[in-house]
Structure formats: structure tokens, C-alpha cells
């Protein structure tokens, strides 16, 4: 019987030709990932296992990105635990402040994940790497601990939903709009436990940054992984980066899907997800007069250089509305430097915005832009749950970078077409 790309990758990692959806397997991992919030618990649990060392010091990545540069003494202590563990076990891929970035932008950019890999990470947005044709999924700290000791993880082989995107995208419509629209259509548990396989002519022409954004938010529909079969766009991205051999898999023509959903992208306008669930997606023109206090452009979802270029196109020679705080956060140091070289940093600062060092900070209401009671933000991040960016009565609206930039200029949620 035919298999999906996800089944094939899982089979290859447990020494099998075929795995059946629903069966439980122990699979070998190519990379285990953790950050400054999840790794400290994993380290504590790892010590309890009694393993002499980690299974492979080259296959663990530790990225302090959530509360860094450290926001308080307690988070500094947690980051220190991660640093000391990395030193003790000679972890090759430990990324210190100043060399780090938001993990899900940094790891693929560093070529640490390649097509055909099996990656687990103690962070729910680990599903991002499906964009390069890898199986990657978020797990908890205890799973991370066991995988650091054994090099394996238990997984249930997921059923898959195939999404077929067709039609030409509009100028301001990107990966973020496609995924918000999709989540709006199927709901926040519409892909629970399942693979979201993104296919179709629109995906074939979607650049890498848009593919990362789509796979990144598979978890917001409850998905186990998002995945896109590697093609020329993938290999162009990987060529200068891949640290290991790429293994290209694709779904068989007779692979079995529990559902096939077709989406006409020519009819999708820029999307905005209203509080307090990502599934509350509407087109930006339907939103009405929604005033904002803050706009955040960045995160593992939309902090790549192309995202910043899109925002800069809207903000060039314009000013942020007097009532709005604009916070722009490039996802990695490399992206930061590139944004400086291209003059994007200057555009953001001259517009009256903040241009920050890489951090997850505001996305999870950690630091660098928490909201006060009753405040409202538009953000290119991935979640708009109750209190996600700060006070429980604050609100987050999700959008693409151009919509967030246009809203920062107008002081209310706005389409880029109103500004440019």
C-alpha cells in the first residue's frame, strides 16, 4: 500500500519499509532540541535516567531564546543550567546569546535539519522543519530527556490530511495568510494528532520563508507535523547550508489520506485571526475599526529576512502612529545583520519603531513587549490565546508582516493597500 512522505520518513527511522497509521514505533532521532524554558526540566529528568552521557553530542541543539537576553534572575539561573549542561557534555550545537536566534529560524538556517530527517524538540513549534521535507514535531521536556539518553522517541504514526492549494496569490498574501485561512476553515483541533501535508501548485511556487510559516503553525490546528515535499526551492535553500546528506522522500500516488482539502488561493485576502483562538480568521477588510496599542513583527513564525523586507516596504518613509508601539524582532543574528546591511533596520527606527535583538520575548508574554490590562496588539506571531502577550484582559490579533506594519502606521488594523 502507498505511503505518505511522513510514513516513509518514520519507517526509515525504525528500520522498516512500511509503517501503518495508528501503530506505535520507537524511532531514531537525527536531532533533539530544547530551549531555556524546556531544557532545564529535561536536564533534571536526564540526570534521573542515570545515563553516563548523551547519546550523541552532535545531535542535540540547545538554544536559549525564550527569556534571553535574560529578563530576570530566575530566568538567568535557568539559562545557566542549560549552559553548564552544554559545557559538561560538550554539546556542539549550543548557541549563546550573541550567536543565537529563535530556534526554529536558526536550526534550518544553520543546516542542522535536512530533508528526510526525524527531529523532535521540546517546543511546540518544532513542526516548522517540515518545510524542508523533514518529519519534525514538538514534545515535552521528559521526551527530550529520554531522547538525549537513548537517541530514540516513541511515536504514533499519524494519519494524514492532504491540503491542495491552487490559484495565484495576491500581492500581500503569503504563507501566513494561507495557514491562518486553513486553520480558520478546519479549526484549532481540525488536524488533531494528524499530519498536515501541504501540496499543490501554489505551494510549488511558495518561497521557503512562506513554507516555514505554514509548517510552523500546523500545531495551531492540533497537527502532529506539517510537511512539504522537497523540490528545487527546498534544494536551493539547503545547498549552501546542509551539514548532512539530504534524503528526499515524497508521498506515493496511492498514499492514503483521511481527508483531502482543496483551497483556491486566488480568493484569499490577507487574513487576521481575532482573539482568542487562531481559528478566528477573517479577511482584513472585514475587521472594521479596531484600534491597536502595539504591533509586533517577528517570532519563529514571521521573523525571517523576507518578512522584514515585506514590513519595510510598507513602513519606508512612513511614521508609526503616535498611539502605537512598533517592535520589530529579527529571528537570528544573521537576519539582524542582513537587515542592517539592507537598510531595513534604519527604516524601522526612522519610522519610530524598536529594532530588537533576537528573542521569543513578547510572543509568549515573556518580556520585550508585554501588554497591560485591556491593551491590544497586532502580531505576526502564532497564538492569540487569553493573556498570551501579557495581562489576561489584553488581546492579540494575528496577521502577516505587511498587515502588522500597515496597522502600526494607521493605529488600527489596516490592509497594506490602505498605506502603500
Amino acid at each position, binding site marked *: 500500500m502507498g505511503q505518505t512522505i511522513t510514513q516513509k520518513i518514520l519507517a526509515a527511522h525504525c528500520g522498516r519499509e512500511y509503517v501503518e497509521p495508528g501503530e*506505535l514505533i520507537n524511532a531514531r532521532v537525527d536531532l533533539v532540541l530544547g530551549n531555556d524554558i524546556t531544557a532545564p526540566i529535561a536536564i533534571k529528568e536526564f540526570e*534521573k*535516567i542515570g545515563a553516563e552521557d548523551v547519546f550523541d553530542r552532535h545531535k542535540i541543539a540547545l538554544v536559549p531564546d525564550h527569556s534571553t537576553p535574560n529578563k530576570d534572575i530566575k530566568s538567568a539561573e535557568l539559562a545557566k543550567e542549560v549552559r553548564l549542561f552544554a559545557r559538561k557534555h560538550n554539546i556542539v550545537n549550543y548557541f549563546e546569546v550573541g550567536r543565537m536566534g529563535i530556534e526554529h529560524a536558526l536550526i534550518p538556517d544553520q543546516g542542522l535539519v535536512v530533508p528526510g530527517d526525524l527531529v523532535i*524538540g521540546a*517546543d511546540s513549534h518544532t513542526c516548522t522543519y517540515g518545510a524542508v521535507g523533514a518529519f519534525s514535531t514538538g514534545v515535552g521536556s*521528559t521526551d527530550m530527556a529520554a531522547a538525549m539518553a537513548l537517541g530514540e522517541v516513541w511515536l504514533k504514526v499519524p494519519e494524514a490530511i492532504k491540503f491542495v492549494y491552487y490559484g495565484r496569490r495576491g500581492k500581500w498574501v503569503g504563507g501566513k495568510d494561507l495557514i491562518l485561512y486553513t486553520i480558520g476553515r478546519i479549526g484549532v483541533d481540525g488536524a*488533531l494528532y494528524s499530519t498536515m501535508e501541504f501540496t499543490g501548485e501554489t505551494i510549488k511556487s511558495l518561497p521557503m520563508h512562506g513554507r516555514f510559516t505554514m509548517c510552523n503553525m500546523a500545531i495551531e490546528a492540533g497537527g502532529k507535523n506539517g510537511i512539504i515535499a522537497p523540490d528545487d526551492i527546498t534544494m536551493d535553500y539547503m545547498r549552501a547550508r546542509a551539514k548532512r546528506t539530504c534524503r528526499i522522500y515524497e508521498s506515493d500516488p496511492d498514499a492514503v489520506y483521511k481527508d483531502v482539502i482543496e483551497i483556491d488561493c486566488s480568493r484569499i485576502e490577507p487574513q487576521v485571526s481575532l482573539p482568542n483562538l487562531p481559528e478566528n480568521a477573517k479577511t482584513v477588510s472585514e475587521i472594521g475599526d479596531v484600534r491597536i496599542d502595539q504591533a509586533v513583527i517577528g517570532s519563529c513564525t514571521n521573523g525571517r529576512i523576507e518578512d522584514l523586507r515585506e514590513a519595510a516596504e510598507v513602513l519606508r518613509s512612513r511614521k508609526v502612529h503616535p498611539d502605537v508601539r512598533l517592535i520589530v524582532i529579527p529571528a537570528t543574528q544573521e537576519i539582524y545583520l542582513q537587515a542592517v546591511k539592507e537598510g531595513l533596520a534604519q527604516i524601522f527606527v526612522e519610522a519610530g519603531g524598536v529594532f530588537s535583538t533576537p528573542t521569543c520575548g513578547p510572543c509568549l508574554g515573556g518580556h520585550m513587549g508585554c501588554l497591560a490590562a485591556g491593551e491590544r496588539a497586532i502580531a505576526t506571531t502564532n497564538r492569540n490565546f487569553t493573556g498570551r502577550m501579557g495581562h489576561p484582559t489584553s488581546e492579540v490579533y494575528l496577521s502577516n508582516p505587511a498587515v502588522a506594519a500597515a496597522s502600526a502606521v494607521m493605529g488600527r488594523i489596516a490592509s497594506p493597500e490602505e498605506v502603500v
Partner: protein
Amino acid sequence: MITGRAHKFGDNVNTDEIIPARYLNSTNPAELGMHCMEDIDKDFVNRAEPGDLIVAGSNFGCGSSREHAPIAIKAAGVSCVIAKTFARIFYRNAINIGLPILECPEAVDGISDGDKVEVDLNSGTIRNATTGAEFKAKPFPSFMRDIIESGGLINYARQRVIASRG
């Protein structure tokens, strides 16, 4: 046998509501437990008695991978979570750290806030002692029962490490 009162919640209870990120600068279970469910039900930790249960709708625990969420629930004294469905990372985390969870839509519909509930984890039987109604949860696959019976994933991994040393 687990016995306690039910605290009912709706669909899509997410990890930001179970334990807000502002408390993730700690890994101390007692400290996390003090803030359990704070942004969705400020008074929860004061009302919940040791042994009480959380009974919730679909997609419980959606959102972040933070294991702090099931840790906070356990530390708040909650003995078991019954939901229509669980988000997958929360499900794994609960199994891995030994927080009893059961998927049973019928029980969720048949239990009201404040009802007295009895749960037999071995058989998956849920009894609403207030109304007398009885429900049967979906059994765990045997592989997961192995992890649960080992006392969580860490004990399971420790046994594997010891076995590999011969």
C-alpha cells in the same frame, strides 16, 4: 481508586491558561501549582481540594509544549483529568510524568461542575457518584500502559539504560 469533586472547563483549554508564561521562570512544581489555571479561573487553586478532578471539553492542553502545564495541574492536587480529547503534546507529557488522564466524551457530558466522581484507572471506569451514572474511557495502548506501569518515561528509560549495560 481516585475520588474527588469535578471542576468543569470548556473546549480548547490551552497551556497559556493552565500556566501563564510569566511563571515559566521557575521549574519548581509547588510554585507552578500555585498558579494553575490562573488566567481562566483565578480562584481554582483555592477551591480545588487534593484529589479533585478536572473535567473538560475537546482539545484540552492545546498550545505550547511546556511540561510545566501537567506539572502545575499535578502540583495543584488534581488527581486526574478527563476530557473529550487532548492536544497531543499535553497527552504525551501527562503520560510521561504520570498525571492520570482519560479520554471519555460521554463522561464529560455526564458530569456537572461540583459532582463527586470516582475513577478506576485500571479498568477505565468513571462513576459519577452524585448521579450514579457510569462511563467507560478508551483504554490506553499496551505500549503506553508499559510506560505508565514503569512509573513514567524516565523510569522506563532508566530500565532501558540499565538493560543496555547488561
